[in-house]
C-alpha cells in the first residue's frame, strides 16, 4: 500500500510539477500590499502606551500633556473603553472548570505583564503619536509578580490575585481510562528499565518578518479592517462577538501578509483598539508595531517543563510512557493558548508502539507575555521529548539509538495503525524514509569518524542526532475538535467560478501568507478542470470575497482547503454536464470529462467534444440551455476532513562541537520526509527548509529571556538572536511517498514538519558529541556557554549523575534558569531495575 517513489504520479499534469510561483513577480519587484502600505485620506496613526512593569495596579493616568501635544486627535485609556472593549476571545477552553481572567484590550485598573497596553494615542502622523505616547503619565503601584513557571505552579505569588491560583486547568489523557491502551503505572511497575527525564521547552518568539499592522476604515457602511493576520475570517467573527458589532458590518482583509508561523493566529488587543479608535474618531486609523513592540507583546510560543517517564523491557521494547507537563500560559489566554499543549497530547507516543500512555498537562499563569500557537504548536514539544527519550533509552541500554527506534516503531505493514491515543495513522513507511536518510547522510562513515575523533581526543568532537518523527496535521475533523472543546470546526470552504472568457476564479477560505496557495491551488484546479495553469486566478484573504473560511494554520491548507477546492471543481463539472450533454445531443451518462473537455464515450478519438470554456460562455449568454438549468456553473464546497494527516520523516544531523569553547557547528543535515503526494515539490522543499531553520534555532539560538523584574531583555533583534545565512548550512532533503488515504490528492501537511522534527535531531547530535564527558542533557538553546559548562560539569561529576548535576538544567546565575522547583520535580534520574522484580 505504500509506494516509495519520488516521481510525480502523472508528469503531464500540473500536480507534481515544480511550478514557479505566481506570487513572486510582485514580491520581487516591490509591488506589494502590506497593511502598513495603506494610506487613506485623513488617516490617523496610533501609538500604544505600554506598561514597563510586570504586575501593578494602575493608580492614575494623566493624559493631559499627550492630549495637548501637536497633532493629537484622541487619547484613550482603559477607563475610557472599559464598557466597550469586551474581553479578548479564547476559543479553546480545555476543561469545564478552566480558570481565566478577563482579557481587556486596554488594561483598566491592573497590568499583568510588561508590555500590556494601558493607553492609546491617535495623531495625524506616526511621529506625533509616538511623541505624545511618551507624555502619557501613568502611576503604577507594584504588585508581586510571578515569573517562573514552577514558582507559579506552586502559587508562590499570584499572576491574577482574583483567581486565587495560577493554575488555569489540568487536562489528562490516560490510555487505560480511555480504553485505548494499558495502565502506565503498571507498565512502570513491571518495567526492566525506567528512564525518567525532565526537559525544558524554552520560551520562543515567532518573529515573523512583517511586523503586525492594522488599518481600520470606519467611513463606509461597513467597518473595513486590513490586518496582518493569518485568520481574517476568525478575526471578523471575533470582532463581532467581542465588540457587539453586526458581523455583516465588518469586513476583514488580510492583504499581503509577511509570515505568521502561528504568531498571527490571534485576535490582538491592537486590532480591537484600532477598531475602537476608528469608531471613536470616525476616521481611518492605522497601527503598525515596531519590532521591539512585536517581540514584547505579540504572543510568544512554547515554554513548558516536561517530565517524562519511559518504561521498557531489557530487550529495548517500550512498554509505557508517562508525560507530565507544566505549560506557561503567560498572563492571559489568547485565541487558542490553552489548547496548544493539548495539540501535543496525542503525539508523545509518536511512531512507537507504546502499549500504555498517560498524559497530564497543567496550564499555569505567569506575569509574562501570553503564549499561543507557534509553528508546530504542541507537536514540536512532543517530538522533542520523545526523540530525546529514545536516545536516553538507547544510552541506558548501550544500544545504537536508531536500532532502538526501529525495534519500537510501527512497521509499514501495520498501517492503518490505531495508536495508544486512539488516533488512526493512515499511512507511512518509517523504514523507507530512514533507509534513504541514512544513505544520503553517510551514517556509517560518520559514525566511524566520530569514533576516530573520540579516540584521538580531538578538540572538535562529532555527534550524530536522530529524529524519526510524525505529527498530526490538517486541523481537523470537526467532531474531534468538538470533543476537545475547541471553539470552531475544522472544515474549509472553496468556490470555483467559471468566467465567460473561460478563465477560472478560485476562492479559498485559507488565507496564505507565504505558503504559495495561489500557485498550488492553480495547479490543482488546472488538473481538475483541464484549464491552463495561467487561466486560474486564486482569491483569498478578504471576507467580502471569500466569505467563509477557517484560515491558515496547523498545516491544514492543502489537506483541508485543497480538498475543498477539488470538491468545488468537481461540482462545476457536474453542473456543466447536462449542458454538455444537451450540446452534444448525448445522454448525460454517456459523457466523460477529460482534459477540460466533455466527450461521448465510445465516439472515437477524433470527436471534438465541448470544452468547459465554451460551456461557460454559453451559460453566461444563457440563450440556449437545457430546460430548467440554472445559468451558472459556479460551485461552492465546504469540506470537513475525516481524519488528520500524519506526515513523518527521518532527520539526521551531524554537529561538530568545539570542546574548548562549547561552540557547535552544523556539519550536515539530511531529512527525508514522507508527506504523501506532492502538489509542488519546489514549494514543499521551501517549507521544509524554513521549518528546519526555525527548529534548529530553538535548539541552538533562540530564547525569550525575562529578567527578575519581568522585563523581556531579549526584546530586540540585537538580543533575540535569529540565525542568518552565515549561521546556517545548505540541507539535503528528499522524500518518500506514502499517500494519505484521507483526501483525494493523497497529500499530507508540510508546513510545520521541518520545525517539528529538527530540534531534537540537533540536540541529540550535540549530546552525542559530548556524552563521553558525562553529559546527558543541555538546556536549549544549546549556547556555547551551556555546552562548555556541561562538559566541565560532566567531567567533574565523574560518571554517576545525580539529580542535581543532571544536565546543567539548573546552572545558577544563568538567565531563565529555573531552580529545582517547588513543584518538587527532580532533574533527570535513571533507574535500572533488574528483571523479575514484578
Amino acid at each position, binding site marked *: 500500500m505504500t509506494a516509495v517513489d*519520488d516521481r510525480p504520479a502523472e508528469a503531464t499534469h500540473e500536480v507534481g510539477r515544480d511550478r*514557479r*510561483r505566481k*506570487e*513572486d*513577480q510582485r*514580491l*520581487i*519587484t*516591490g*509591488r*506589494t500590499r*502590506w497593511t*502598513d*502600505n495603506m*494610506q487613506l485620506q485623513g488617516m490617523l496613526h496610533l501609538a500604544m502606551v505600554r506598561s514597563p512593569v510586570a504586575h501593578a495596579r494602575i493608580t492614575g493616568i494623566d493624559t493631559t500633556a499627550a492630549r495637548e501635544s501637536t497633532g493629537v486627535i484622541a487619547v484613550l485609556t482603559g477607563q475610557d473603553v472599559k464598557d466597550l472593549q469586551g474581553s479578548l476571545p479564547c476559543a479553546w477552553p480545555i476543561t469545564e472548570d478552566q480558570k481565566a481572567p478577563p482579557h481587556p484590550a486596554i488594561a483598566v485598573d491592573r497590568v499583568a505583564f510588561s508590555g500590556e497596553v494601558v493607553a492609546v494615542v491617535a495623531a495625524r502622523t506616526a*511621529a506625533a503619536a509616538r511623541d505624545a505616547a511618551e507624555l502619557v503619565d501613568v502611576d503604577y503601584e507594584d504588585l508581586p509578580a510571578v515569573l517562573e513557571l514552577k514558582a507559579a505552579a506552586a502559587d508562590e505569588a499570584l499572576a491574577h490575585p482574583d483567581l486565587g491560583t495560577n493554575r488555569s486547568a489540568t487536562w489528562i489523557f490516560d490510555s487505560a481510562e480511555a480504553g485505548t491502551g494499558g495502565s502506565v503505572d503498571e507498565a512502570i511497575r513491571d518495567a526492566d528499565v525506567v528512564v525518567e527525564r525532565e526537559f525544558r521547552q524554552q520560551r520562543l518568539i515567532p*518573529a*515573523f*518578518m*512583517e*511586523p503586525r499592522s492594522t488599518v481600520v476604515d470606519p467611513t463606509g457602511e461597513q467597518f473595513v479592517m486590513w490586518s496582518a493576520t493569518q485568520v481574517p475570517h476568525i478575526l471578523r467573527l471575533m470582532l463581532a462577538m467581542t465588540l457587539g458589532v453586526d458581523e455583516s458590518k465588518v469586513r476583514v482583509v488580510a492583504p*499581503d*501578509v*509577511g*509570515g505568521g*508561523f502561528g504568531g498571527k493566529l490571534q485576535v490582538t488587543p491592537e486590532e480591537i483598539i484600532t477598531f475602537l479608535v476608528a469608531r471613536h474618531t470616525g476616521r481611518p486609523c492605522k497601527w503598525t508595531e*515596531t*519590532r*521591539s513592540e512585536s517581540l514584547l507583546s505579540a504572543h510568544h510560543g512554547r515554554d513548558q517543563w516536561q517530565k517524562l517517564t519511559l518504561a521498557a523491557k531489557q530487550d529495548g521494547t517500550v512498554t509505557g510512557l508517562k508525560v507530565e507537563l507544566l505549560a506557561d500560559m503567560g498572563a492571559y489566554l489568547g485565541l487558542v493558548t490553552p489548547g496548544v499543549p493539548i495539540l501535543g497530547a496525542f503525539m508523545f507516543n509518536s511512531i512507537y508502539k507504546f502499549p500504555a500512555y498517560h498524559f497530564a498537562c497543567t496550564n499555569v499563569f505567569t506575569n509574562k507575555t501570553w503564549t499561543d500557537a507557534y509553528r508546530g504548536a504542541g507537536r514540536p514539544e512532543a517530538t522533542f521529548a520523545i526523540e530525546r527519550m529514545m536516545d536516553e533509552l538507547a544510552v541506558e541500554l548501550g544500544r545504537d539509538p536508531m536500532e532502538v527506534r526501529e525495534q519500537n516503531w510501527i512497521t509499514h505493514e501495520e498501517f492503518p495503525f490505531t495508536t495508544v491515543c486512539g488516533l488512526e495513522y493512515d499511512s507511512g513507511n518509517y523504514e523507507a524514509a530512514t533507509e534513504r536518510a541514512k544513505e*544520503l547522510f553517510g551514517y556509517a562513515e560518520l559514525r566511524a569518524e566520530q569514533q576516530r575523533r573520540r579516540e584521538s581526543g580531538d578538540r572538535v568532537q562529532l555527534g550524530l542526532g536522530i529524529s524519526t518523527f510524525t505529527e498530526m496535521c490538517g486541523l481537523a475533523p470537526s467532531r474531534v475538535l468538538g470533543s476537545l472543546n475547541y471553539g470552531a470546526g475544522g472544515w474549509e470552504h472553496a468556490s470555483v467560478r467559471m468566467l465567460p472568457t473561460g478563465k477560472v476564479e478560485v476562492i479559498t477560505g485559507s488565507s496564505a*501568507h*507565504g*505558503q*504559495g496557495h495561489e500557485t498550488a491551488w492553480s495547479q490543482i484546479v488546472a488538473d481538475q478542470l483541464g484549464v491552463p495553469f495561467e487561466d486560474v486566478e486564486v482569491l483569498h484573504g478578504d471576507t467580502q470575497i471569500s466569505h467563509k473560511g477557517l484560515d491558515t494554520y496547523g498545516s491544514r491548507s492543502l489537506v483541508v482547503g485543497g480538498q475543498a477546492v477539488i470538491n468545488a471543481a468537481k461540482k462545476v463539472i457536474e453542473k456543466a454536464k447536462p449542458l454538455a450533454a444537451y450540446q452534444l445531443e448525448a445522454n448525460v451518462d454517456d459523457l466523460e470529462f477529460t482534459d477540460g473537455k466533455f466527450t461521448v464515450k465510445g465516439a472515437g478519438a477524433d470527436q471534438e467534444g465541448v470544452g468547459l470554456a465554451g460551456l461557460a460562455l454559453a451559460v453566461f449568454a444563457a440563450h440556449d440551455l437545457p430546460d430548467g438549468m440554472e445559468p451558472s456553473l459556479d460551485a461552492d464546497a465546504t469540506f470537513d476532513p475525516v481524519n488528520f494527516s500524519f506526515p513523518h520523516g527521518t532527520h539526521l544531523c551531524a554537529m561538530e562541537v568545539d570542546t574548548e569553547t562549547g561552540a557547535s557547528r552544523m556539519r550536515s543535515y*539530511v531529512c527525508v520526509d514522507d508527506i504523501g503526494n506532492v502538489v509542488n*515539490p*519546489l*514549494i514543499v*522543499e*521551501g*517549507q521544509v*527548509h*524554513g521549518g*528546519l*531553520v*526555525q527548529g534548529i534555532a530553538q535548539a541552538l539560538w533562540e530564547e525569550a529571556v525575562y529578567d527578575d523584574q519581568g522585563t523581556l531583555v531579549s526584546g*530586540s*533583534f*540585537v538580543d533575540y538572536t*535569529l540565525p*542568518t*545565512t*552565515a549561521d*546556517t548550512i*545548505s*540541507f*539535503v*532533503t*528528499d522524500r518518500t511517498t506514502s499517500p494519505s488515504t484521507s483526501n483525494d490528492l493523497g497529500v499530507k501537511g508540510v508546513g510545520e514538519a521541518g520545525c517539528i522534527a529538527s530540534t531534537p535531531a540537533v540536540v541529540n547530535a550535540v549530546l552525542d558529541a559530548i556524552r563521553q564527558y558525562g553529559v546527558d542533557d543541555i538546556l536549549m538553546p544549546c549556547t556555547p556557554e551551556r555546552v562548555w559548562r556541561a562538559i566541565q560539569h560532566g567531567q567533574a561529576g565523574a560518571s554517576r549523575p545525580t539529580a542535581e548535576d543532571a544536565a546543567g538544567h539548573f546552572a545558577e546565575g544563568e538567565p531563565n534558569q529555573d531552580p529545582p522547583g517547588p513543584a518538587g520535580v527532580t532533574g533527570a534520574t535513571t533507574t535500572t531495575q533488574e528483571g523479575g522484580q514484578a
Partner: protein
Amino acid sequence: MNITVKVDGTSYTDEVEPRTLLVYYLRETLGKTGTVVGCDTSNCGACTVLLDGRSVKSCNVLAVQADGHEVTTIEGLADGETLTPVQEAFRECHALQCGFCTPGMIMQATDLLATNPSPTEDEVRVGMEGNLCRCTGYHNIVKAVLQASGQPASSGGEQA
C-alpha cells in the same frame, strides 16, 4: 529641511524633518512601499537600498543624509518587465515565501555580486549576513545568489 534625492532615476525635492529616516521618506513621501521596515535596530536588512550604488539599511540613514545622493530601491531594478538576474534567480530558485525580506535580500545580493561577481557559497553566506529571513531557512536564497552569479548551485542541494 529641504532635500534633493534621486530615487530610481527620478529627482525629488522635498521638505523633511531632520528626524525622518530614509526608509520613511521613501515609503511615505515618495510612495516607494516596496522597501519595508522589519526592525528598529538595523539587524534585519529588510529596508536595504543602494545609496550611491552601495547597499545600506535605509532605516539607519536619515533622509537628510541622502541629500544630493542617489538611491536605488527594489522598484528601480527591473527594466519594465525585464527582471535583473538576481530577481530572476530569486523566482527561479523559490528564494522567497512571504516576500517581506525579499526586497532587502535582492538589494544586498545585487551589491554583493557587483563587487564579487563569482562568490563561493561561503562568501554568499557571509555577504548576506545582514539580512534576516524567517521563511526560507536561507537555503534557496543562497542558491539563488549563486545562480544569479552564473554559477551552478553548490553541493548540499535539495533532492539529493
